[in-house]
């Protein structure tokens, strides 16, 4: 059934938004088969975003860990520095075709906000970004970056002042102004059609990986690793391989200070079924369905839910979800920087951290692909703070 992944998904939004969702769904169903739309999107991927992104063999890391061969899918090398550009180019192009003149978006770490502001600048759309007050402070440079690109950034002071509150506020704004505005959801979350549409735009990652690994190794990888907040870079990598049962799909959740503490954002590890932000899925919440204030060092994974397709992949056992703590992520952040000369986003560092555990348990003939979903320049100041280093900017 459309918009459902097993028991998860759906369209749980106020009536005011229902026709807007139906319009997006109709437009997407039409344009995804439209030759000129796809030609334009592919041209943007190639000439603007820099696709295909590299699949890099991390030889030093592989040797150091002494197990499986490790490849990095370099989404960090995309224009704007993360996988987020794949989705926004698709959605903003669609919004343009729909006759919208204004896009709004939520952002956590700021990567999706920067990507949206970028696509909006390119396609001459008005752009407003909602960002939790706490995140505007953690990621002040990205706020300035969005403003440089011509976007207006609204700090959100409600609730926990992080990603979920930014989504709340963007939803409220969309309810108030629908005619000329498209809400560019940043992940495979929210009401139908967003989980499907965002997955489709991101699935270019996995398609490229298949072609690249077949060329390099002549075989499929044994495990795919990606960090999961809402889960767009993970589903982007996994989707192409869901039918390949021998390929393990492993999502790495942000455990924050640990899944046995309240300072965590690991939804599969600690969440329960719920309905929030337009979708039925798993959420971190209390016994009365109040959404929990979650925590992670990574603003991009600091979200109390997970996309409905991941919830379904978990239910069916097709994908595994593992928690990774702040400490482990920071260690991996430094490890990859020193060993390979690649500074990963602290989000992506969660996947690197799990690879550091997994690779040594695997044979040297086996292959792991890590989705390096973003670059870490934006996190340098936060990591320094975490390590107690005082920087003078």
């Amino acid at each position, binding site marked *: 059934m459309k918009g459902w992944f097993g028991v998860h998904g759906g369209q749980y939004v*106020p*009536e005011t938004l229902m026709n807007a969702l139906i319009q997006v769904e109709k437009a997407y169903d039409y344009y995804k088969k439209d030759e000129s739309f796809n030609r334009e999107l592919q041209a943007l991927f190639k000439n603007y975003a820099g696709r295909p992104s590299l699949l890099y063999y991390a030889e030093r890391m592989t040797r150091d860990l002494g197990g499986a061969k490790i490849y990095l899918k370099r989404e960090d090398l995309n224009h704007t520095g993360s996988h987020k550009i794949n989705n926004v180019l698709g959605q903003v192009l669609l919004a343009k075709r729909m006759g919208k003149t204004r896009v709004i978006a939520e952002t956590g770490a700021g990567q999706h906000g920067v990507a949206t502001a970028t696509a909006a600048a390119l396609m001459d759309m008005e752009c407003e970004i909602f960002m939790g007050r706490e995140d505007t402070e953690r990621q002040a440079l990205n706020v300035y970056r969005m403003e440089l690109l011509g976007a207006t950034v609204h700090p959100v002071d409600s609730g926990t002042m992080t990603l979920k509150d930014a989504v709340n506020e963007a939803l409220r704004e969309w309810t108030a102004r629908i005619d000329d505005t498209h809400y560019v959801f940043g992940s495979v979350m929210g009401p139908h059609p967003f989980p499907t549409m965002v997955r489709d735009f991101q699935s270019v990652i996995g398609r490229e990986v298949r072609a690249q690994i077949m060329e390099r190794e002549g075989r499929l990888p044994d495990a795919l690793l990606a960090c999961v907040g809402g889960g767009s870079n993970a589903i982007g990598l996994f989707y192409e391989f869901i039918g390949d049962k021998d390929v393990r799909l492993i999502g790495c959740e942000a455990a924050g200070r640990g899944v046995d503490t309240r300072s965590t954002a690991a939804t599969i590890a600690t969440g329960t079924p719920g*309905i929030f932000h337009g979708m039925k899925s798993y959420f971190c*919440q209390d016994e009365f*369905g109040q*959404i929990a204030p979650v925590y992670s060092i990574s603003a991009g994974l600091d979200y109390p839910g997970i996309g409905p397709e991941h919830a379904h992949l978990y239910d069916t056992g097709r994908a595994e979800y593992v928690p990774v703590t702040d400490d482990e992520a920071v260690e991996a952040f430094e490890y990859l920087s020193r060993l390979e000369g690649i500074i990963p986003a602290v989000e992506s560092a969660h996947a690197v951290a799990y690879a550091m555990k997994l690779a040594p348990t695997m044979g040297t003939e086996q292959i792991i692909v890590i989705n390096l979903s973003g670059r870490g320049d934006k996190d340098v100041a936060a990591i320094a703070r975490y390590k107690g280093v005082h920087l003078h900017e």
Partner: protein
Amino acid sequence: MSRIEAVFKNGKAFIPFITAGDPNLETTEKLVLCMAEAGADLIELGVPFSDPVAEGAVIQRASQRALQAGATTDKIFDTVRRIRQKTDIPMALMTYINPVFVYGPDKFMESCRDCGVDAVIVPDLPFEEKGELLPACRRHGVTLISLVAPTSDARIAGIAREAEGFVYVVSSLGVTGVRSEIVTDLRQLIALVKAEKDIPCAVGFGISTPEQARDIARVADGVIVGSAIVKLVEEYGEGAAEPVGAYVRGMKRAVSGE
């Protein structure tokens, strides 16, 4: 006649909303009783939710106050049960789908029936998803109120045809909160509902003044006011019963055309 049917039998209805547990549940009990006394025809009690996406700043703050003061779904049911022993005023719970889903729709509606709640209003449960709650509502005789919005267009007929109790007509785009002007053609919106089904229509979102209420009551069967009352509760706290009572009395007069 059920209590929900009775709401619209006393002329045009005035329907006040407050957030249960704001600033505490004792005050909620007092407020319900005084609003009933002041002429309210149905009382909407908000079960606070951590992330109320359909609410403006005023009700968001009220939800936070109530949760911080310890209001839970169970404690709210206890309060409603106490209120029900003292008054026959029709009561509806307004909340989001998640608190109901996590509590368990069947258990939630059973508690509604046992405590004397007549209806539930769930703004993030659109027509397409109402199967989530409708079977449990039917089992326990709780009315699930349907909403239509200025953007509903072709959806109105389907929603109206299956609506029960009354239709909650959302006056404007955006979230709840006081507005100086309502630009939607409510007369036409309501006509579209009534063309499909002879069912009372109550208008909410953005209404605060007696003048607005009087105008809207000319085209609607009832007027719903939330934020303006919640603001009084925010200002007067535990002492809000008197100003809220006076406000409700004035609004009931306004909708009655006096």
